[in-house]
């Protein structure tokens, strides 16, 4: 399917995500509703992988770049951030390493136990 048509389907689902955010009183952003809608559409066969995968893969591959504007925005917030930047950065560094390690290890260990049980 043509690239723009694929992009249109993705935008339509993003728009439905925005509608859900406006209509439902939960603290969930449009993008997460959209992700759930896309998954549902794929699982029910309303949308097929071939209908969205080319535009989808392009968006996923360029995703890291999309964070640049917000990250450069640290510049604009610098005056508010500076007074507590030391403690905040230390908290982030230690916490992120521990969270990544702990959640990864718990998942890995649980998978091993389950595999042993199956055998």
């Amino acid at each position, binding site marked *: 399917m043509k690239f723009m048509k694929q992009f249109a389907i993705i935008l339509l689902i993003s728009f439905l995500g925005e509608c859900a955010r406006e209509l439902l009183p939960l603290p969930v952003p449009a993008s997460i509703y959209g992700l759930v809608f896309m998954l549902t559409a794929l699982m029910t066969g309303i949308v097929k992988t071939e209908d969205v995968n080319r535009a989808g893969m392009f968006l996923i591959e360029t995703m890291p770049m999309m964070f640049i504007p917000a990250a450069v925005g640290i*510049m604009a917030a610098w005056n*508010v951030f500076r007074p507590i930047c030391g403690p905040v950065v230390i908290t982030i560094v230690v916490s*992120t390493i521990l969270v990544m390690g702990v959640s990864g290890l718990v998942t890995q260990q649980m998978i091993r136990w389950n595999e042993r049980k199956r055998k």
Partner: protein
Amino acid sequence: MRDIISNSSFFGVMISVLSYELGLYLKKKYKWAILNPLLISIVVIILFLAVFRIKYDDFNEGAKYLSYLLTPATVCLAIPLYEQIQLLKDNWKAILAGILAGVITTMCTVLAFAVMFHFTHEEYVTMLPKSITTAIGMGLSQEMGGIVTITVVSIIITGVFGNMIADIVFKVFQIHNPIAKGIGLGSSAHAIGTAKAMEMGEIEGAMSSLSIAVTGLMSVIFAAIFAGII
């Protein structure tokens, strides 16, 4: 020259893409973990804007179109997730336990450092949503009475740091399973971590995408409980 740049609609996207390509090039050439393309591009742009005294708002006038694509890109994370749905069904208990462990670790470490650094209640609740995706994190911080700007800065630093450090963390903690890697990245470093997971492989990327949503929702519940402590 400064006026041309300040009034340009293309400058923001152009410098973002170019500096990111520069980052990719440097990483490929020198292969150091610290040479993270995202970090390089952020540093290059901040230096450029500072040296030429260009306002962030002028840069963002063009660059906002990159941010605009973030929602459709997040929606597309459902595609690799759908392709790995069987893996998710077979391992859902392990995946859920891993994400839950991650969320609790986030809350406990933030609490521990808040006590250590004598954070005020306001500063403490500002930090609680640091590992979740910006849109959920901002809303959560606001609701709990945090400083939203600093929450956003923390979320981004967390993501970029997680993206940078992942290879080293997985080596040190001996995490080899691709599902476990994806869950680790997604539950600690949200969408920016997921971008890294996508580079590692399809399974890692799919699992990390799933973690963004689940971590976000679990954090909303746990932050409400933890916010009462300090």
